């Protein structure tokens, strides 16, 4: 008998499958333990060479045994077999093999390994891009990890905030003691453990003085929170940590719908009791199934009753592996040889032959275990018939969180390890992570080619040597050239072995060779957990305008606008969008229409210094505005470019209303607050954001005035005038502003009373032959009128002069952006100016480039295109180099992406009623 095994106890009650074969596990088994118990040693194929790989560790550091767990949307690729606990019905599949794990065609790469060394891709794919295109598909198929699932994850993921005085990471002996001590001192304690059971190393090396279950009970009784199956995956600023909690195992169906929970924890103090990870030993064939870390062998025997091999060779440079020898004897297996690289060591258990000055040089294997181990003992080689090699190359403190916290590392020469030192945060590391056992440096004995360092990325000692030979001196360069320490395990087992080799090559000490930085997350985190509730369209709540329900009754075409939805058009009798929009726009031009403009930014500015504040924000003159009057205005950034526009109204002596664009409303709110609070805290005024306090209804068209007069019983204000009024028994603000080019009004009403006002206006408008109109008709109207829109013509690069608004600038200056505007480049020749375009043939493609003739560089672009509303013909708005001076010129609009072209003539952008006669009654 050889290979991994476990004597049945009758407890094998949990059915699961691996690559379609049915097996049974005991409660508490990890997938790795269950596979070994069933004699399965070969579980994966390596990333690059497709070499057979087994289970190397018993923890999250596992580089080899990556499997895909679950089915459908619950599929989780690249799950470590050592980090998933078997549940009934678990479906696991091996990865990176075809057609099967035991017969993998691509294993031929292994034979070609000498040609596939470090930098292979860089060296091979020199030359034109088309060569790369030829190889790419092949490479993508050949090299890789598991496949991402194609279906949506049906599960939910929750995110919660947590606060505690003391957060302890790790429930090994040190962590348990620290957590209990802190809880007894009256602190709110969180104890986090990534395993499903507490105890850490106690699960492998029990201590009669420490009972994890009893200590956990005591911590919980004192009010502490113990989070099992929870990983502290990120340590951020100011003692903020993210914890990822598995509520069910990967691929399992959660009982309450939630698969995982992400904790955002702010801790008063953090205690890291994160322990050690064992270092592998480099020798030829050290990646084969049947080569395991020494402590992992002990864990499988003591915790799961699994004996990973029957004839075991142990290779070590430290005393800890002698405990493994004892465990193997206890389990009834045989220790063929204990190879100790040191000249002397502790007493070995009875029946164990110890060889000193002995190092493993090579191993050969069969499918699920080893066949033979070769060692260099003293100066001579010796072979052993063995099916398992338990290796220990020393220990690496788990300092990831410490480093994420900004902590420094200190070199421990005796242990050949970096241990956590100072940290800028309120955090300390305790336990074995700061006291790793002594383990001297040992020169590798085997051939470098197959002495693997990074198992997950197939990086061997030879690759490191090659990188060195080719001039890669820095550890950062080494990492990038060889891919060492990348992928899902982030070099947990490989970094120190590689660093030791690099230091040896450089002839420097390990700390002089440097170390790459650890970044979050500590172990891989699934995307669903990070998305949380946002995964299901709940990232932002849906905001409804006050008249949403009323519009819905008309079954409009909706359009997202800012945070809201607004009707784009109200089609009737089977109209499409274009037909409905044209009808609505024609109705506005000939009769009257009403539209919802509730989402406009609205700010009430009041107080004795209200005008002073507005004159700082607005680039137009405000101070001279008479009470009951309003005007168009625009605002500049500090660098002189226009960033928003709107209207400003003087409602009373010291009270103004400022409106701004929907999309820019938040930005404007922030800007107003900045100007008022930071630039001019001395002003006596207040700014109140009333955007959602008021609903806004636009009423436009030749009959708008008479409709409104009948509804309010008062003569409406003249163009750009303001008057308070009453409509449908409700107080309203009437602002005579026009966006459409017709005589028009904005009626602002408190949001809670908006429905009755809209209904009254709609009824009266329909009675005259009018109708509601949506955003699409509004766009047709404003393009024909030549109004700019923020985000269209106002694109963050346009000055007031570019937009033809230069004449409105406040002459006295003093507003935000006035200084920036004086920069020479902002008035130089060649700037893009706002113009109109009239088509000389077909429709004008929106977004098209303006060119003089084919093959020339674009001189501008079309920002918005439309058709004339009452007569025929296509028009557009555009930004054109020196456009103000080019009216009358003929150009071509070309849109290569749409494959469309049109001949156009440059004109003024004001196609409709340029003199503004239609505003007058």
């Amino acid at each position: 008998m050889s290979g991994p095994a476990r004597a049945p106890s009758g407890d094998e009650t949990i059915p699961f499958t691996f690559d379609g074969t049915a097996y049974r596990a005991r409660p508490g088994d990890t997938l790795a333990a269950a596979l070994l118990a069933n004699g399965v040693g070969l579980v994966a194929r390596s990333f690059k060479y497709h070499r057979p790989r087994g289970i190397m560790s018993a923890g999250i550091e596992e580089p080899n045994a990556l499997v895909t767990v679950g089915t459908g949307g619950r599929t989780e690729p690249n799950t470590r077999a050592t980090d998933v606990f078997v549940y009934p019905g678990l479906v696991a599949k091996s990865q990176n093999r075809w057609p099967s794990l035991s017969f993998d065609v691509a294993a031929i790469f292994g034979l070609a390994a000498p040609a596939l060394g470090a930098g292979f891709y860089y060296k091979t794919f020199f030359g034109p891009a088309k060569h790369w295109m030829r190889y790419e598909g092949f490479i993508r198929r050949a090299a890789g990890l598991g496949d991402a699932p194609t279906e949506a994850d049906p599960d939910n993921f929750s995110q919660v905030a947590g606060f505690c005085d003391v957060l302890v990471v790790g429930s090994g002996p040190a962590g348990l003691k620290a957590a209990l001590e802190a809880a007894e001192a009256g602190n709110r304690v969180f104890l986090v453990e990534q395993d499903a059971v507490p105890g850490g190393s106690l699960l492998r090396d029990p201590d009669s003085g420490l009972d994890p279950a009893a200590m956990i009970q005591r911590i919980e009784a004192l009010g502490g929170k113990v989070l099992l199956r929870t990983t502290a995956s990120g340590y951020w600023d100011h003692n903020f940590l993210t914890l990822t909690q598995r509520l069910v195992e990967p691929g399992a169906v959660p009982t309450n719908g939630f698969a995982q929970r992400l904790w955002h924890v702010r801790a008063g103090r953090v205690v890291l009791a994160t322990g050690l990870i064992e270092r592998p030993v480099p020798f030829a064939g050290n990646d084969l199934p049947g080569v395991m870390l020494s402590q992992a062998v002990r864990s499988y025997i003591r915790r799961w009753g699994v004996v990973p091999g029957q004839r075991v060779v142990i290779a070590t440079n430290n005393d800890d592996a002698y405990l493994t020898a004892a465990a193997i004897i206890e389990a009834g297996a045989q220790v063929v040889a204990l190879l100790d690289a040191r000249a002397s060591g502790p007493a070995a258990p009875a029946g164990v032959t110890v060889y000193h000055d002995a190092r493993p040089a090579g191993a050969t294997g069969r499918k699920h275990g080893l066949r033979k181990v070769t060692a260099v003992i003293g100066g001579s080689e010796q072979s052993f018939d063995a099916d398992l090699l338990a290796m220990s190359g020393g220990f690496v403190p788990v300092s990831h969180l410490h480093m994420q916290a900004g902590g420094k590392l200190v070199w421990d020469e005796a242990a050949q390890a970096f241990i956590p030192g100072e940290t800028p945060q309120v955090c300390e590391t305790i336990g074995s992570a700061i006291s790793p056992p002594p383990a001297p440096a040992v020169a590798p004995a085997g051939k470098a080619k197959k002495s693997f360092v990074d198992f997950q990325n197939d990086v061997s000692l030879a690759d490191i040597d090659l990188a060195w030979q080719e001039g890669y001196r820095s550890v950062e360069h080494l990492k990038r050239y060889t891919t060492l320490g990348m992928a899902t395990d982030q070099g947990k087992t490989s970094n120190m072995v590689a660093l030791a080799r690099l230091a040896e090559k450089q002839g420097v000490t390990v700390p002089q060779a440097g170390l790459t930085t650890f970044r979050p997350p500590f172990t891989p985190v699934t995307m669903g957990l990070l998305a949380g509730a946002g995964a299901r369209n709940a990232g932002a709540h849906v905001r409804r305008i006050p008249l949403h329900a009323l519009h819905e009754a008309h079954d409009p075409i909706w359009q997202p606008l800012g945070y809201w939805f607004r009707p784009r058009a109200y089609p009737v009798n089977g109209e499409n969008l274009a037909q409905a929009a044209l009808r609505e726009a024609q109705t506005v031009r000939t009769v009257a229409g009403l539209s919802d403009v509730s989402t406009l930014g609205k700010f009430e500015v009041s107080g004795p210094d209200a005008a002073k504040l507005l004159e700082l924000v607005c680039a137009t003159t405000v101070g001279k505005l008479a009470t009951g009057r309003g005007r168009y205005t625009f605002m500049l950034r500090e660098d002189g470019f226009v960033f928003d526009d709107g209207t400003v109204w003087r409602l009373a002596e010291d009270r103004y209303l400022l409106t701004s664009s929907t999309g820019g409303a938040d930005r404007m709110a922030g800007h107003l607050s900045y100007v008022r609070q930071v630039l001019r805290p001395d002003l006596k005024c207040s700014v109140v954001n009333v955007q959602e306090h008021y609903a806004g209804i636009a009423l436009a068209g030749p009959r708008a005035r008479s409709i409104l007069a009948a509804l309010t019983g008062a003569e409406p204000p003249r163009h750009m005038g303001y008057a308070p009024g009453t409509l449908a028994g409700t107080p309203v603000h009437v602002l005579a502003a026009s966006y459409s080019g017709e005589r028009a009004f904005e009626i602002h009403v408190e949001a809670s009373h908006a429905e009755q006002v809209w209904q009254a206006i709609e009824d009266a408008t329909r009675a005259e032959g009018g109708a509601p109109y949506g955003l699409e008709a509004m766009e047709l109207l404003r393009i024909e009128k030549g109004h700019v829109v923020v985000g269209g013509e106002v694109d963050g690069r346009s000055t007031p002069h570019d937009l033809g608004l230069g004449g409105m600038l406040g002459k006295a200056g003093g507003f935000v952006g006035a200084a920036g505007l004086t920069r020479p480049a902002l008035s130089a020749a060649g700037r893009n100016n706002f113009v109109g375009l009239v088509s000389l043939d077909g429709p004008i493609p929106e977004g098209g480039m303006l060119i003089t003739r084919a093959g020339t560089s674009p001189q501008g672009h079309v920002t918005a295109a439309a058709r004339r509303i009452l007569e025929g013909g296509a028009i557009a708005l555009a930004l054109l180099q020196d456009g103000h001076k080019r009216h009358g010129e003929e150009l071509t609009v070309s849109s290569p992406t749409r494959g469309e072209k049109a001949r156009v003539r440059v004109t003024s952008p004001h196609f409709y009623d340029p003199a503004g006669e239609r505003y007058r009654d």
Partner: protein
Amino acid sequence: MYEIACPHCGPRAQTEFTYERTVDAVVDPAADAHTAMQALFTRANPMGLDEEIWRHTYGCRAWMVLTRHRVTHVIEAVKAIGPEALA
């Protein structure tokens, strides 16, 4: 994620705040173009303590100046600014 001690609300998570700019990038509206552009585009950016303007946007909405270390991220002081702070 920082913990910022809002002078009005107490310690709160950084997600409640928005960063505005450093104090040396505040442009006096009366400044000439050169001075204004210098302030906007050539900031001191020290490798150490700097003064930054933040706003408790998703809290009390007040503005404040943080004295923050740009390497360690330690916030040494938080000072309220705005009309109320003048009173």
